[in-house]
């Protein structure tokens, strides 16, 4: 029962994206192509007519098994600016529901002849599962799966870093907070190491930063001052309230005292360091209002960049699908 590698699964025979499931295994060329293409879409957002016809006539389904407002909205906007028809489906699933229903849901949606599924799911590997079980020629875009990956979020973060820093060479980046449960941190780590930054530090207590991340190329710091010292970029992660129930932390207050980003702790970073956060932010839990709204915060730029990056990814995956299917058809004849 051989299955394809998730990293190979997302590329067609020409090495182009046909799904977008994870950044693990994507090389610097592809990541840079996404960023370059996103840059070109960014300028378009400032024009009065914000549409291009790259996905005209295509049906894109936002398939959200987990709640999200921001991610879903930016994907919707991205698809609409590419002239696609967009359907939003929020499918609530309980934690105990089985893949049977996921497969059934999928079969029903396939019958609607969609061209692309944008999937968010609470199970790690769900978009990969869908890509394997879906009819060919439907592009699957991962909009966040369990703790595994959130590749478009990581790429919009990379775009934000590149626009502010100009390059990845020599950068030191700190990611602070709940790394254990964070799909964003995992995807950022893949992107940052592939794009060639100098160092990625993961900062938090042992309960939230598993030691195994060192084997993925990260440096682990349990002390915020050591973690932020001389960094160019600070990424703060959202702390979920339920982490206190799981005995991973004593209290929000103690977490903020030890790992919260304030004017004082930010001073340990480089003077021109930027502050990022995938949102939504918890003011006074992981970040102070002064910092979140301060001049070094690029949190709102991230949102704008998110639309451009998603346009880039959607258009590349659709084009990769078409090229892939054309070759398949030609081969069949």
């Amino acid at each position, binding site marked *: *029962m*051989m*299955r*394809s*590698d*998730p990293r190979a699964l997302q590329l067609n025979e020409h090495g182009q994206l046909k799904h977008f499931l994870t950044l*693990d295994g994507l090389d610097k060329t592809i990541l840079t192509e996404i960023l370059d293409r996103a840059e070109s879409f960014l300028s378009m957002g400032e024009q009065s007519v914000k549409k291009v016809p790259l996905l005209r006539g295509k049906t894109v389904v936002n398939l959200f098994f987990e709640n999200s407002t921001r991610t879903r909205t930016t994907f919707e906007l991205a698809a609409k600016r590419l002239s696609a028809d967009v359907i939003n489906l929020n499918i609530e699933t309980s934690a105990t*529901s*089985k*893949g*049977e229903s*996921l*497969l059934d849901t999928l079969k029903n949606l396939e019958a609607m002849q969609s061209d692309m599924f944008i999937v968010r*799911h609470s*199970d*790690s*590997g*769900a978009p*990969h*599962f869908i890509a394997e*079980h879906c009819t060919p020629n439907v592009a699957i875009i991962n909009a966040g*799966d*369990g*703790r*595994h*990956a959130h590749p478009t979020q990581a790429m919009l973060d990379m775009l934000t870093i590149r626009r502010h820093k100009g390059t990845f060479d020599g950068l030191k980046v700190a990611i602070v907070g709940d790394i254990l449960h964070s*799909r964003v941190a*995992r995807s950022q780590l893949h992107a940052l190491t592939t794009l060639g930054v100098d160092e990625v530090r993961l900062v938090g207590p042992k309960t939230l930063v*598993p030691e*195994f*991340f060192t*084997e*993925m190329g990260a440096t682990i710091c349990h002390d915020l001052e050591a973690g932020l010292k001389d960094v160019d970029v600070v990424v703060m992660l959202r702390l979920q309230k339920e982490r206190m129930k799981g005995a991973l932390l004593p209290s929000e207050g103690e977490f903020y005292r030890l790992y919260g980003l304030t004017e004082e702790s930010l001073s340990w970073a480089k003077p021109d360091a930027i502050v990022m956060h995938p949102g939504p932010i918890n003011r006074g839990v992981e970040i102070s209002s002064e910092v979140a709204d301060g001049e070094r915060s690029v949190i709102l730029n991230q949102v704008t960049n998110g639309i451009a990056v998603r346009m880039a990814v959607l258009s590349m995956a659709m084009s990769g699908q078409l090229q892939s299917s054309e070759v398949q058809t030609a081969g069949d004849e």
Partner: protein
Amino acid sequence: MKLRVQNGRVIDPSQALDRVTDLYIENQKIAAIGEAPAGFEEAEVVDAQGLWVLPGLVDLAVALREPGYTQKGSIATEGRAAVSGGVTTLVCPPDTNPIVDTPAVAALIQDKADEAGMANVFPLGALTQGLNGAHLSNMVSLTDAGCVALSNHRRPMASTKVLSRALEYAATHDLLVVFQPDEGSLSEGGCAHEGLMSTMHGLAGIPETAETVALMRDLLLVEKTGVRAHFARLSCAKSVEMIADARASGLDVSADVAVHNLLLSDQVLNQFNGHYHVLPPLRSEGDRLTLIEGIKAGVISAICSDHQPHEKMAKVAPFAATEPGMANVEVLLPLAMQLMDEGDLDLATVLSCLTAGPASCFGLEAGTLSVGSFADFVLFDSTAQWEWTLENRKTKGQNSPYLDDHFTGRVMATFISGQRVYQLV
């Protein structure tokens, strides 16, 4: 009926036997090896030229799924799968529906197994009623009804006190208790070994301590209560050390391991393939190698298939949402043979862990070709090349990463009490 099995390579680790010779069978039992008993006139000759003649395998973990889960398997289908894999004696877990916590369920399973005419089936009885971890089962009634040992499977005990009392009660009546060490509060929600692979793929981890914390507690309670104990499905390197230490200090406990934990590590998780979702999980390469060392050192004396058949849909889901378990009983022998290359084990050790080893863990009269024992044996073609497929499989289960694999070595025929119960056609 009198039977002569001639010219086979007879390999029986229980008597350090490995030579080309003849087996003589009379009244369901082995009558002689080598020289025919005086006046022996066979009614049938079985030509085993070029084949290995092995004791029937003893598998300590084969879920038959009946009663209760016949969409996954039945006593008839899984019994047939077992004998086609050369397993002539098997132990089935108590997690049926209803659970094996009354003599009636134990009797039902054995009656159906007799009816099917396949492997000898020994149920495990539940240690607590409904495996609820709180109320002791009628342990003596269960063993009187044929249960070979008692186990709470992988279900948690309500408290250490209840466990301690269950062991005291079992010890009173000299009953065997089977542990699957798992501290539920540490493994809860997990689906993969806590390590680099689970961290990378965002799969909730099961730490090594889920097994070792429970194992240490269990060993201390076994020592205190003096109960006869067997530790099942070890997965961690540290567990092997702990069992070795316990035995060195005089505690008479035995242990087994599932064949997949000896062949696979968590490296295979890189494809999110739910067929590799098992409990206990596939652990690190270091754990795998130490488990093999544990076999070499005799700390682990049994290798089982941990056969858990599932219907197709049970594995058609994202990794964490799939049901755990593999259905490998019918390829147990060729899989175990791979350990000679993969783990540098010798043939006698591998075969011992499939026959006399597991039999002695549970005190079963099986797994040997010694004169006077029941004639349970297997004809094995060690060089046969074949492919195991969905079409030729015998189990009802569709869940094995080994389906569509090519194997070397195949069971050609299986005999129980001198009767041919399986013949490859």
